[in-house]
């Protein structure tokens, strides 16, 4: 049969009423094509952040790669090619999408004052100012430079830091540098992976 793939593609596209290389009419197929609603997703392999098992996941992101469009995570599943979990996920890992897309997720800082039972909203500027004031005040009042035997320890036992499992390497790096420079001992980044 003296027809190349190039010729076939050409006949397919011109006017939408071409035939396939084997002679099948494409007119009805083309008509259906016109009504298709097509969405593009991307699949990105990653690692579940929740625990030290480090299961592989595939993150499905919806977006047509347009410059102004914000990609939207639509699904997270276990990576079947990953040697640790081979496509399986625990219930927490299976809900990973909710870590990213959740209308109840906090988007602004909150504070619970001493003695209060409710959390109140606070602006970022005010939150940072208050943290700075309280950190300075607490550190000045409770910093331990020498222990009871006279050894230099330079530690601060009245402030602690708890990180989250989804914190990035960069955030954890800054947290370590900042807390260690203050002398904070009770420090946990929750970095497991």
């Amino acid at each position: 049969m003296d027809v190349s793939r190039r010729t076939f593609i050409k006949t397919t596209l011109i006017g939408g009423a071409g035939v396939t290389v084997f002679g099948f009419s494409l007119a009805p197929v083309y008509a259906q094509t016109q009504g298709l609603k097509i969405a593009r997703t991307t699949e990105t392999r990653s690692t579940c952040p929740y625990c030290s098992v480090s299961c592989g996941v595939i993150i499905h992101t919806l977006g047509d790669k347009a410059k102004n469009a914000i990609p939207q995570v639509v699904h997270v599943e276990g990576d079947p090619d990953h040697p640790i979990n081979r496509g399986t996920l625990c219930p927490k890992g299976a809900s990973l999408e909710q870590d990213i897309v959740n209308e109840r997720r906090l988007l602004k800082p909150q504070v619970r004052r001493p003695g209060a039972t409710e959390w109140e909203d606070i602006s970022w500027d005010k939150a940072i100012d208050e943290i700075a004031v309280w950190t300075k005040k607490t550190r000045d009042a409770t910093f331990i430079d020498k222990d009871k035997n006279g050894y230099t320890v330079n530690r601060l036992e009245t402030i602690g830091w708890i990180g989250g499992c989804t914190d990035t390497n960069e955030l954890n790096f800054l947290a370590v540098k900042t807390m260690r420079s203050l002398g904070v001992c009770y420090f946990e980044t929750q970095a497991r992976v």
Partner: protein
Amino acid sequence: MSNWWAKQIQRADQLAPKANGSKELLKFYAQLLRAQKDIYEYLCSREGWLPSGDLESDWPVLSEAFPGFLKVVEKYGPATLAAEAHGLSATSDEVAAERLVTYWRSASDIQFFEKAFLQPYLKWLAESGGRPIGREISASERYCPFCGGNPQVSFLQNKETTAESGNRDLICASCLLSWEFRRVVCANCGEERPVKLGYFYSPEFDHVRIEACDTCKHYIKGVDLTRVGFAAPIDDEIDAAPLDLWAREHGYTKIELNLVGV
């Protein structure tokens, strides 16, 4: 293994009445599958004979099934194929053998008769423990490890009982066997960067998608058996022919044309 062919035929028969744009394609493909099943059963039922894997020496046995196959194509195929089938049935055995051997050495997806006729032979060859002789088999994971053929379609299927995710397999266009392939990799060029790999979905074909690569501009269709467990990838792939036209309109080329030429 006739059950495999029966399942494909049943699925094509099931899809054809409900199909919109691809109705005629599926009706023909159902008949073609029946002809292929006949060839397969004829080869399996030969007493004291197993395929050697050398097409030239197996041709005397194969040639007996060729006329029946041509008759089916002539009866149910479009005018182009019917005319060619008619012409082939009038030629000598040697001419037909030469065409098949040429395809055997260097397969092409626009050689309908060769590809369709040899699929049941290669399938039976694999199942009977033989190996194809005289075909170049690449070590690349993107080619069929048995016969070196291109992938026709990919499908997702659960292999771990506790997993919701589907493992990805590719089905060979030449021998119809499947082999494991990684999920987030282009089946044509091996591209792995997520930003270069696009997965296109349409609500009209809920369990079929286009798996396209922006690096080599090729695509393959994927059938998700974790969504529709009774689907048959090679049938459902034809049913979703409108997706092929959409992909081509957007600059992608299919890795391997199927037996209806889309």
